[in-house]
């Protein structure tokens, strides 16, 4: 079977591969050390420093590459957490039904009445900030959205004949969740995965930009914007480099997610037709 990938998705995939390899091989690719001061403050672009230098004379390209590593790592880990937890909770709620479903769903509704960013700020005012805490906080807050989607998908699957058949032949809850419902709920969820990942990238960047996310000596794209924002007033565009990177990554993931979504919906249409 040959698979035709549309040009937009191909561009998205290439860009994503580029960013992820930056993240994985950061120490090998980066021309300088992460905290190494190698020149003057805000030097312009040159052969020596492709993107110039930052607010205290570190190589901006190096900072960007290490920033990609932190941003992508945190966003990926938080996405995995929210996805696993959200999906498992939602599927269990649907299969168990009754008061478990009711209590969980109302609790999720309640959490969602407070805007995510505001909730995160309230929590971050108390807990010490570390990368692990950020991942857990972002993952837990986003679990609510995954839960809602997964529950909506699972409710439809739960009434299918094959699930009923599994119940009648006496399978346990675990089997029904993992072997009957999960495989069939996976394709719409995978399309959502991309959107959740973008949301996480935007979320961690925003927190770091506000000075409440990744702290030195680590850095991420939001923190680089924060460090270099004063330069903008003097006409130095260093802060725009991470901004462009965030936008490019988000758009490329969106392009891929669109393609996956179209593929899975056309798949469904084909089966029902």
């Amino acid at each position: 079977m040959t698979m035709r990938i549309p040009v937009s998705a191909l561009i998205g995939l290439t860009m994503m591969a580029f960013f992820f390899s930056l993240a994985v091989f950061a120490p090998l690719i980066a021309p300088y050390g992460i905290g190494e001061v190698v020149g003057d403050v805000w030097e312009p672009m040159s052969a020596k420093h492709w993107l110039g230098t930052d607010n205290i004379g570190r190589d901006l390209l190096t900072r960007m590459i290490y920033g990609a590593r932190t941003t992508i790592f945190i966003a990926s880990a938080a996405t995995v957490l929210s996805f696993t937890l959200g999906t498992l909770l939602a599927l269990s709620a649907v299969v168990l039904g009754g008061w478990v479903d009711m209590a969980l769903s109302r609790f999720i509704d309640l959490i969602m009445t407070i805007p995510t960013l505001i909730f995160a700020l309230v929590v971050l005012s108390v807990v010490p900030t570390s990368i692990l805490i950020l991942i857990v906080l972002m993952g837990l807050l986003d679990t609510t959205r995954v839960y809602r989607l997964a529950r909506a998908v699972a409710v439809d699957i739960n009434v299918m004949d094959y699930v009923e058949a599994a119940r009648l032949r006496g399978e346990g809850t675990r089997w029904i969740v993992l072997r009957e419902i999960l495989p069939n709920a996976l394709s719409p969820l995978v399309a959502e995965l991309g959107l959740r990942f973008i949301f996480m990238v935007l979320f961690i960047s925003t927190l770091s930009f506000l000075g409440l996310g990744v702290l030195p000596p680590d850095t991420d794209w939001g923190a680089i914007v924060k460090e270099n924002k004063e330069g903008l007033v003097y006409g130095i565009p260093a802060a725009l480099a991470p901004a462009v990177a965030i936008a490019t990554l988000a758009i490329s993931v969106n392009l891929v997610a669109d393609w996956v979504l179209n593929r899975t919906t056309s798949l469904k249409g084909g089966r029902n037709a």
Partner: protein
Amino acid sequence: MPTHLILLVIQRLALGVLLLLASSVLIFAGTQILPGDVAQAVLGQAATPEAIANLREEMGLNEPAVSRYLKWLFGAVQGDFGNALTNGADIGASISKRLGNTLFLALWAAVISVPLAILLGLIAVRFRNRWPDRLVSAMSLATISVPEFVIGYVFMFFVAVKLRWVPSVSMINDSMSLMQKLQSIALPVIVLTFVVLAHMMRMTRAAILNVMESPYIETAELKGLSRFAVITRHALPNSIAPIVNVVMLNLAYLVVGVVVVEVIFVYPGMGQYLVDHVAKRDIPVVQAAGLIFASVYILLNMAADIIGIVANPRLRHPK
């Protein structure tokens, strides 16, 4: 208004009050019952045990959590949020001034973005699957993919720094005239407009398209009405309820967008106040500001639902 409609509205109001209460519990619990000691967190690892004990006393941390919560809630309802830990200032007084500034900013963003979004949504429907529609879709994909602060700095860099049309920092005070104030907030308003425009456009487009698939639209088309007349005379009145809903939801979204935009433009509003005091771990201020943001968000969502109930013709005539 028929009785059962009033009943529905009252039901939704009661739910709103319940959600407000529950969110206040969440915000309080979020800052008080988290692992680790609040006084320790405020003072840092190097604090002496005496200092921690004093602060615990001062913050009333030795009382049980429920009585602290009730005290805090009753104070908050009367506008008394206590004093800030960092400078001892009265939180209620600082907030009332800043809340006004934030609402001023959000109001102008709404005044510009709402009509613009509806107009663009209509254009997208009118030229469905042609280039204006595609342009609107591409634009909204691009703005959704970009965090608020990126849009903010791109505008600041090109409009304020390179072109020098407006100041890059949005100072605002009482002695300024309305025109001066408007000039000062021009850039943040444009950025906020961009932030909500994409969502609003998409949702408006979807709401109208949904109506366009109804049989009465087909009838209108078969009558030979022009496409524009079909949209403005038949589709638009019937999509008012969903559009109002869209607008309200996006105003709620604006409440969050404002936090980041205020920090970018150093605008003296609630958002900057909140972010500053999160960094300083000034918990009473964070609680107060968080509660106000959450309340505005919940109230706007409630307003959206109530307008939806009142505007729904199906609910007007019970079977």
